[in-house]
């Protein structure tokens, strides 16, 4: 039995035989073809090209439908390359004049393009070389008829374990048979990870090297809730997981019923539970699960998807889609929070190549020095504000001056709109993310100036404990239950209460059921979580009374170690909602 841990990007636990896909090294079996067969070989090349174009088009449609047209555009550029007359002419010439095999010709021609582009020493063009390799791969796959064909002709359920899956491969996974997948490489924000969530199959990325020890066919347990892959589990583990799956199926059904019920404690305290979203499409996941609104609408996708900066109308359209879908429910739009782990190409030149991007020019700092871009976003938010219940939130605020500057720019934009006679909500609530320890330390001062706080625990934990959670060597320091984090949250809640300002917790912490009694006991009344977690959170809230929550939070706050806090909270959760615990980890 071997266990590997990676980044959980799509939840669920599945067991099945493994299908291994190594990194693809195409071996071109023959470099020459028979002179008599030239016409047939050219025909074979065209047939492969047609199939590739068809695949690209269906990728484009699928991705456009699921994630929006701007993602589909990745594939329309690929299509243009696949249909390129120069490519076709040169490949045909190699086959006809030098009796080269189509495989060899395709590879030779495309690699010569990639090679020339890379030699130009131009960043934009050398990145294009990657697209060319992708096309080469697609064509060779068709021509050789091997490789990942196995993904298409599945007849029994499998769990895919791959070095990497391209976005197109992910988008076309046959979810009838592919129970889940895990990859050695990849990050949380890769397109592959995002697509896995859209497909709603369990997925893990960034496992590190693990394929060498797997030959295929072994039984594998893929735990998309905890980011674990267990290869060749012992019979005891299998039995435990199977038992857990049966119960988790039951609870999934019961949680489905939660969608229509309000998040209200046993003693009648209503708790607000909103959803965190990234793409406009996700708003329906929130509404479906009975969310009280959108507590965090990330806007980075607008910047990460295109080759140009989003226009005001790009922003406006994306915001209106969510705001209108929510009706009277609040939508908290967070301004650009980019940097560190995700740098869009179009802003790349502005990022300092510092040793510590987490501590560098990112997020609100970037918006404040890039006023035209910031104003475009703010204008769109304000314009969208007349269509519903919109709030604006600034990320990564670390000083009062930053908050004031951001607010001042917002006021400027309001003035401009007023001059132009464009309607907007003048008293739009203006809040900030609390994710830098300095903001917590000065929470009282901030509380006087903001309309609301939202605690972003992910960054707050990383900054407080000085650890990068994606670095396996120190990730163990990253604990939501660390007593220092509990105390910081307490400080924010006290300061906000004193000034009558609402607080939401919108980080990963608020999506984890075991932390809910603690947070409610501390006085929190508003959460924003990934939409998928909302039914579970409701279940916890509905099985809890405030007096119980207070007792739990008091005891948790008296403990010294993160480990003890989390262990205690886990115990309390299993007492409150025993079924729920069984579905989380084993």
């Amino acid at each position, binding site marked *: 039995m071997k266990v590997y841990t990676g980044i959980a990007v799509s939840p669920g636990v599945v067991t099945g035989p493994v299908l291994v896909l190594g990194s693809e090294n195409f071996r071109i079996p023959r470099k020459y073809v028979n002179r008599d067969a030239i016409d047939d070989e050219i025909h074979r090349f065209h047939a492969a090209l047609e199939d590739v174009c068809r695949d690209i088009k269906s990728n484009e449609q699928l991705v456009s439908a699921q994630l929006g047209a*701007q993602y589909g555009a990745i594939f329309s550029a690929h299509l243009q390359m696949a249909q390129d007359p120069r490519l076709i002419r040169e490949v045909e010439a190699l086959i006809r004049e030098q009796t080269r095999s189509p495989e060899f010709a395709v590879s030779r021609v495309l690699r010569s393009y990639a090679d*020339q*582009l890379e030699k130009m020493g131009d960043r934009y*063009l050398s990145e294009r070389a990657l697209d060319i390799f992708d096309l080469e791969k697609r064509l060779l796959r068709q021509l050789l008829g091997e490789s990942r064909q196995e993904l298409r002709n599945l007849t029994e359920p499998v769990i895919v374990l791959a070095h990497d899956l391209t976005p197109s491969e992910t988008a076309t996974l046959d979810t009838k048979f592919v129970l889940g997948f895990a990859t050695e490489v990849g990050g949380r924000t890769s397109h592959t990870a995002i697509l896995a969530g859209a497909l709603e199959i369990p997925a893990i990325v960034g496992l590190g090297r693990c394929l060498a020890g797997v030959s295929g066919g072994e039984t594998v347990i893929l735990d998309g809730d905890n980011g674990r892959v267990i290869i060749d589990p012992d019979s005891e583990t299998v039995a435990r997981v199977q038992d857990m799956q049966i119960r988790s199926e039951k609870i999934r059904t019961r949680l489905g019923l939660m969608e229509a019920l309000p998040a209200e404690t046993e003693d009648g305290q209503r708790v607000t539970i909103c959803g965190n979203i990234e793409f406009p499409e996700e708003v329906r996941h929130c509404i479906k699960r009975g969310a009280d609104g959108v507590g965090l609408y990330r806007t980075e996708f607008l910047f990460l*998807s295109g080759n140009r900066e989003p*226009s005001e*109308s790009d922003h406006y359209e994306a915001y209106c889609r969510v705001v209108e879908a929510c009706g009277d429910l609040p939508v908290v739009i967070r301004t650009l929070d980019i940097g560190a782990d995700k740098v869009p190409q179009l802003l790349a030149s502005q990022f300092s190549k510092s040793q510590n991007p987490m501590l560098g020019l990112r997020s609100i700092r970037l918006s404040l020095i890039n006023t035209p871009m910031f104003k475009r976003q703010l204008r769109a938010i304000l314009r969208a504000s007349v269509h519903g219940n919109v709030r604006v939130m600034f990320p990564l605020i670390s000083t009062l001056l930053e908050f004031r500057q951001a607010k001042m720019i917002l006021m400027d934009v309001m003035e401009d709109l007023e001059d132009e006679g464009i309607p907007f909500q003048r008293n739009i609530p203006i809040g900030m993310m609390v994710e830098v320890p300095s903001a917590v330390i000065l929470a009282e001062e901030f509380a006087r100036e903001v309309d609301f706080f939202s605690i972003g625990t992910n960054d707050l934990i990383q900054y407080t404990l000085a650890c990068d959670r994606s670095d396996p060597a120190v990730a163990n320091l990253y604990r939501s239950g660390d007593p220092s984090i509990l105390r910081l949250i307490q400080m924010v809640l006290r300061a906000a209460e004193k000034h009558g300002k609402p607080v939401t917790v919108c980080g990963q912490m608020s999506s984890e059921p075991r932390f809910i009694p603690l947070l409610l006991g501390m006085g929190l009344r508003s959460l924003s979580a990934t939409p998928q977690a909302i039914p579970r959170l409701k279940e916890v809230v509905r099985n809890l009374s405030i007096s119980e929550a207070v007792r739990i939070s008091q005891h948790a706050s008296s403990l010294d170690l993160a480990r003890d806090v989390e262990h205690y909270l886990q115990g309390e959760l299993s007492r409150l909602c025993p079924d729920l615990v069984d579905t989380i980890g084993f």
Partner: protein
Amino acid sequence: MESEGVVCRHVRVTPEEGLHLRPLQMLVRKALTFSSTITLTFDGRRADVKSAFDLMLLAAPTGAILSLETSGSDAAAAADAISELFETGFSISGSEVR
């Protein structure tokens, strides 16, 4: 019967980053709507405007002057459409191309 023609013009590369992804995609897309042969020549290299690879390998930097040549039944309209893209700096309305 439509008249055949050849049109020659000069265009200047205006996008800041040279003839890169977006302008390139727009050129190919536009060129494909004409039946004429459309070429751009720079530094002795000639590129078929209907080929993204040709245009990429032309590697025309900002400020470069290219000769545009169109020939065929819709040569004049093609020359107009292609030079318009250059003149407007490949700006577009809406989200046609990203």
